[in-house]
């Protein structure tokens, strides 16, 4: 392999590794926004609603996670695309990278996204995606069933009965139950977003966003330097 091909590959690998770290940082920094939204949702729902309409609340929580994940994906893609364009701009003059050198660079690309932890997510994402065409549909892998709704429903029922009776003791029980409900929802969000409590390599929002960004980058690189 020529030195130029090695040099260019190292530049692309540096881009890949930077993006993976930046996405982890981004999701950790923005996770409190999701938690606040989930908490607000629980607090805003009336006790009677909570008791009767757990299904509505579950789909609202799901919607909040989806919407937050889509925002994160858009932010990550936008940053990754800008930084990749910068990397490409800084490559040696395209005329000094001949066809055979470029072939050497692109031949290694299939392994580019082969970072073990995101392998399952990479496999689940459409093969040809680009920065311009990445949708958020592939992120919708979680479902109501994936969240432990029977536990959630039990929590909601307790809240409803407690609050409806109007007693101070039961008000305390309501607050407590509300807190426990939020704990359950935030644990579920941690599992969905970061894969905490799952086996390493299991699909989660973080892995899916990383996989999408790397796949889109790979597609851009395969398109050439022009």
């Amino acid at each position, binding site marked *: 392999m020529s*030195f130029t091909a090695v040099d260019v590959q190292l530049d692309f690998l540096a881009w890949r*590794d930077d993006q993976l770290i930046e996405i982890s940082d981004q999701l950790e920094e923005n996770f409190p926004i999701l938690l606040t939204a989930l908490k607000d949702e629980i607090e805003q729902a009336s006790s009677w609603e909570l008791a009767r309409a757990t299904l509505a609340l579950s789909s609202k929580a799901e919607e909040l996670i989806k919407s937050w994940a889509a925002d994160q994906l858009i932010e990550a893609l936008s940053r990754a695309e800008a930084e990749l364009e910068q990397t490409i701009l800084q490559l040696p003059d395209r005329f000094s990278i001949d066809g055979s050198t470029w072939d050497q660079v692109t031949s290694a690309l299939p392994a580019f996204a082969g*970072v073990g932890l995101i392998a399952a997510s990479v496999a689940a994402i459409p093969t040809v995606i680009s920065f311009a065409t990445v949708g958020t549909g592939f992120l919708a892998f979680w479902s109501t069933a994936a969240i432990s709704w029977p536990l959630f429903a039990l929590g909601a029922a307790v809240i409803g009965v407690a609050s409806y009776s109007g007693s101070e003791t039961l008000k305390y029980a309501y607050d407590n139950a509300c807190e426990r409900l939020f704990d359950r929802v935030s644990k579920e969000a941690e599992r969905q977003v970061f894969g*905490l409590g799952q086996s*390493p*390599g299991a699909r989660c929002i973080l892995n899916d966003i990383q996989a999408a960004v790397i796949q889109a980058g790979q597609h851009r690189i395969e398109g050439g330097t022009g």
Partner: protein
Amino acid sequence: MIFLRAVPPEVVEGVASGIYKVTGSVVREVSSGRGVAFLQETGVLDQLLGSAIKGAGATLQSGFNPLGVLTAIQNQQIKSRLVEVQSSLAMLQNVQVGTLAVAGLGIGVSIAGFALMLKKLNTIDAHLKTLERKIDQITDDRRSDDLRLTLADVGTQLEAIDTLLARVNRVATAEAAERTLATLAGRLEVYFQHHSETVQTQHISLEDMDMLWSLAAAIRLCHEAGLRALLMIDELQAAKELASRRASRFLNLSLNLSPDALSRLYAQREDGVEAFARSRKAALPHAEILVGGLRETVASVASQAELADLLLQRQISGGDYFRAIEDESTEPLLALPV
């Protein structure tokens, strides 16, 4: 010295201004990718490094340094001290101190004699033993014994090359040693791959990363010794091909490792996002040094292929090149104009 000289000020300035960049040991023009000069460290750099390390309070050994022995801050301090002594060393700002190199900073061909290589090998061996006690799966499948034998074989080959100048059949000995070292490096790569694949499916410890680092150091040592053997007998074309292939293999070893994945695997068992984030950030510098060290090695070894090519074109013998480096007593860094 007829071909190597002190780094010209215009090259230092070009790197500082961003017109040039240093990749591996080659200074290149950013816009065209054209090579401008090949950099080669000398024994003077090793001495300067020794004093700078003491000043920074670091505990580097002259042979092998386990992963994470230097913090990022110490790394910066040491490099700043080097620049204070010799301004041309500012060109090496992106190079890590305490790398996988056998000695110095891994710029050019290794300046380490075989005594130092042997010392480094023994230190790696001792360090691996310590790590293996903490990492069950390696010892479970008896890889530990095989690894010991492989490292012992590397030591035997280093001794063979060390006595090269005293031998009648120098060329045959050097060629045989180089071939055996390549085979042993291949075996070490298998250990590396095995451990690399294992750690990507489970919670990992800092010892796991250190194991990969130590194995990579042993592989690099095999390469440096083999390359030196070929250069000593003037097999420049073979040295060029060896370096080129070895660079590709180092690249393949590093391809599926990412600092983010390693640090997340380290933090995987934490309970709650805050603990997870804290743990990930604590492990990230170690993972970055490991992956960065492998990538630096790719660039450094790939540029050795360019050096061998340059020596071929200029009809400079490998022996003369080594003598010129060894004779240098003032400059820590020399340049061979391309």
